[in-house]
């Protein structure tokens, strides 16, 4: 424990407007140490990574590398001070070849070649265009480029996601060997198997704070899961759910072996009228793309969808809407016209079809908007511009749009992300109520504790596949978290 701290980030805080992304985050990496940085979705991990790598300036706290203040606000400077990041999205220039990419970052070619072959890529041509190479290769090249400059601290951000197993093995082995030579490593990942294989220690973030520092030893997973969940804030009584609607009728939405390569490869489920079907997945398991395919933004690469027993093919969201599938995206800025009024935002679908381009039926519009506003208790004091509303109220507007239009099948993607507890409380009963009135709701949430409050059943997606379907009655957070981390499967094997 007397080893020198290569990286010492302490008391780091960062706010974006009213949102406190980080309040008190810490991370130390000693020489030769591999530290896992863990946290559930929205815990502030990505903001912390940005600060450590110099892409963002913290509001408070400091980041020291070898005891010296790290340069911030400029990734090039952070690189020079000894910290090199490798991201899930490789930062290689697609339209340049390999050697030009090395030249751009002043990377010594010989060392780079050496690392590339150590990492198991044999026949790399330096004249190959980055844009022509597969993603897996790019990750390896990005890693080799980072290792070639002999960094003090290497930061790996989810870089093993969607990498073939043999390559993952080789990456882990190489990183381990490098650490034995004294390099420090920060390993950001969701994957327990890799973490237990590779890391010495895990730092857990929750709600923008470092809540624990654990040595990796057998059985540590349970403890990490507990830390990530934390002391449960009482967000409401668990509702007693009766199974809504007999499951013998035709499903509203029948999804069979749906795939959208490379994001998800095998998703099947049935969604019945009167049911809220939860979706549980870690970040980046294909759920974003699944919702976009269901909403008509993308065409699936294979598989089929049926609505009320009839096969459907969507070429445009308008087709999905015509089939009754309405989508509330996770990012409110995708759904809202920030500078327009609440009324215009809610009424937008009314004018969408060519037949409705004429005079607006003002009374009908006012009534429908008023209905949605009242139903959702939207605070209309600042209704002139949606961007002046609070996040919660903005989210209500995006849901209200479909309430005013009439809901058949609602695709809710993380509707409670970043909004206040009070609003959350209004959204769960509303979702239940819609289902009770006969709507079918698909509900993805990044906050597991919401699942039992709103859902009847849950599908768990891991690595682009449905790995489990759980009844809400059995869906306590531990079970869900373990399923989301793909742990049930691993145990079954072992």
């Amino acid at each position, binding site marked *: 424990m007397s080893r020198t701290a290569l990286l010492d980030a302490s008391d780091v805080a960062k706010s974006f407007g009213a949102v406190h992304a980080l309040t008190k985050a810490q991370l130390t990496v000693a020489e030769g140490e591999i530290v896992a940085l863990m946290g559930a979705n929205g815990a502030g991990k990505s903001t912390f990574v940005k600060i450590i790598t110099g*892409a963002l300036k913290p509001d408070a706290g400091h980041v020291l590398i070898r005891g010296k203040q790290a340069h911030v606000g400029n*990734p*090039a400077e952070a*690189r020079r001070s000894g910290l090199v*990041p490798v*991201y899930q*999205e*490789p*930062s*290689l*220039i*697609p*339209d*340049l*070849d390999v050697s*030009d*990419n090395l*030249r*751009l*970052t002043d990377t010594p070619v010989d060392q780079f070649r050496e690392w590339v072959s150590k990492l198991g890529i044999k026949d790399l*041509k330096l*004249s*190959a*265009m980055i*844009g*022509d190479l597969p993603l897996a290769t790019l990750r390896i090249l990005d890693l080799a480029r980072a290792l070639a400059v002999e960094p003090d601290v290497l930061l790996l951000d989810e870089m093993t996601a969607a990498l073939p197993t043999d390559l993952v093995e080789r990456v882990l082995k190489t990183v381990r060997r490098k650490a034995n030579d004294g390099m420090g490593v920060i390993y950001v990942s969701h994957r327990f198997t890799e973490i237990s294989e590779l890391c010495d220690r895990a730092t857990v973030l929750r709600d923008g704070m470092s809540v624990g520092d654990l040595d990796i030893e057998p059985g540590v997973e349970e403890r990490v899961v507990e830390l990530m969940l934390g002391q449960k804030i009482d967000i409401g009584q668990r509702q007693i759910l009766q199974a809504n609607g007999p499951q013998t009728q035709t499903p509203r939405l029948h999804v069979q072996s749906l795939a959208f390569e490379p994001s998800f490869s095998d998703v099947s489920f049935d969604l019945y009228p009167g049911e809220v079907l939860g979706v549980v997945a870690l970040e980046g398991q294909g759920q974003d793309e699944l919702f976009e395919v269901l909403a008509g933004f993308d065409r699936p690469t294979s598989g089929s969808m049926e609505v009320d027993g009839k096969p459907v093919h969507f070429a445009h969201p308008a087709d999905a809407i015509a089939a009754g599938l309405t989508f509330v995206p996770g990012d409110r800025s995708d759904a809202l016209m920030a500078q327009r009024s609440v009324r215009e935002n809610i009424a937008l679908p009314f004018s969408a079809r060519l037949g409705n381009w004429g005079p607006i039926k003002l009374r009908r519009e006012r009534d429908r908007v008023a209905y949605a506003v009242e139903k959702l208790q939207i605070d209309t004091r600042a209704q002139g511009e949606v961007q002046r509303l609070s996040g919660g109220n903005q989210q209500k507007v995006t849901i209200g749009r479909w309430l005013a239009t009439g809901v058949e099948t609602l695709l809710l993607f993380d509707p409670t992300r970043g909004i206040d507890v009070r609003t959350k409380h209004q959204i769960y009963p509303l979702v239940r109520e819609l289902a009770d009135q006969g709507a079918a709701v698909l509900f993805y949430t990044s906050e597991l504790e919401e699942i039992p409050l709103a859902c009847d059943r849950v599908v768990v997606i891991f690595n682009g596949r449905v790995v489990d379907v759980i009844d809400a009655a059995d869906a306590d957070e531990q079970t869900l978290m373990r399923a989301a981390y793909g742990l049930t499967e691993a145990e079954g094997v072992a």
Partner: protein
Amino acid sequence: MSGTIRKHSWVMGLVLLLVVLLTITKVIQPTFGASGLESIARAALPFAFATAGMAIVVIVGGIDLSVASMMAVCAVTAAVLMERMAGVPALLIVLGVGLLMGLINGLLIVVTRVPDIVVTLAMLFVWEGVALLILETPGGATADWLEQAIRGHFLFDGLPKALVVIAVGIAVVWLPVRRSKLGLSIYATGSDELAAFRSGVAVGRTKVIAYALCGLFCAMGGLSLAALTGIGEPVPGPYLMASVAAVVLGGVVLGGGKGGLLGPIIAVFILRIIRTILTLLAVDPNVTTIIEGTIMVLVVMLGTAASLRGARR
């Protein structure tokens, strides 16, 4: 590797098309030879420089709508200066003026954070006004040696001086840039701004330099305009649309990061020869303008469609 082949195959295709068009010209007009080539090269001069400038800003991920206006400013500056002072200092001043205008465009884009297309649209009018302020009606005079420099042949018949001027002018500026880290930064910025930033590229500075280079090429274009006409003409010519079309046809993708300068320059000659062929076929020059305009619009439309398809994947 396959990327380089692809890149070169596009240029090879363009060369092939050029040869085919030249053959057609020869078939239509059996007397077509060195002098015909010379006049095509001369007519292509301003287009080539405008296209080179446009290509660089498109590669960096922007667009410059003010190329024709900057050329007009440089042409009238040259005509006014050369009436009063020695040729070489005047030439250098004009090149400096071009560089300065490009620099101003780039700085305005980076500093005001107004999108390039809007800034350069406004600057299109500003530079046009400046040209009119320098010279209200066509006038002034250019040095004789400037006119001589682009007329006739170099060393032997069949190698037009104008072609040499294009090759030397572009090579002197572009080759050192292309070979240096600056060139890499230009391609990196246009290809993926975030990855470029993470790789340590000073994105803003790179953009400003790219626009400044565009201004420099516009100065060469303006000089060649002055040399062609012997006077300064303050009203901008049809170089904006032509340069965008040549850039797209030349394999530089709107949106940035791809292509080089060779393709667009060959594309300029292709567009010029099509005009020559139409003229030889005794097509009304006005109809030729329509056909040319239609070709250019179609090229841009196809290029946009192709780049959108590429981006979607």
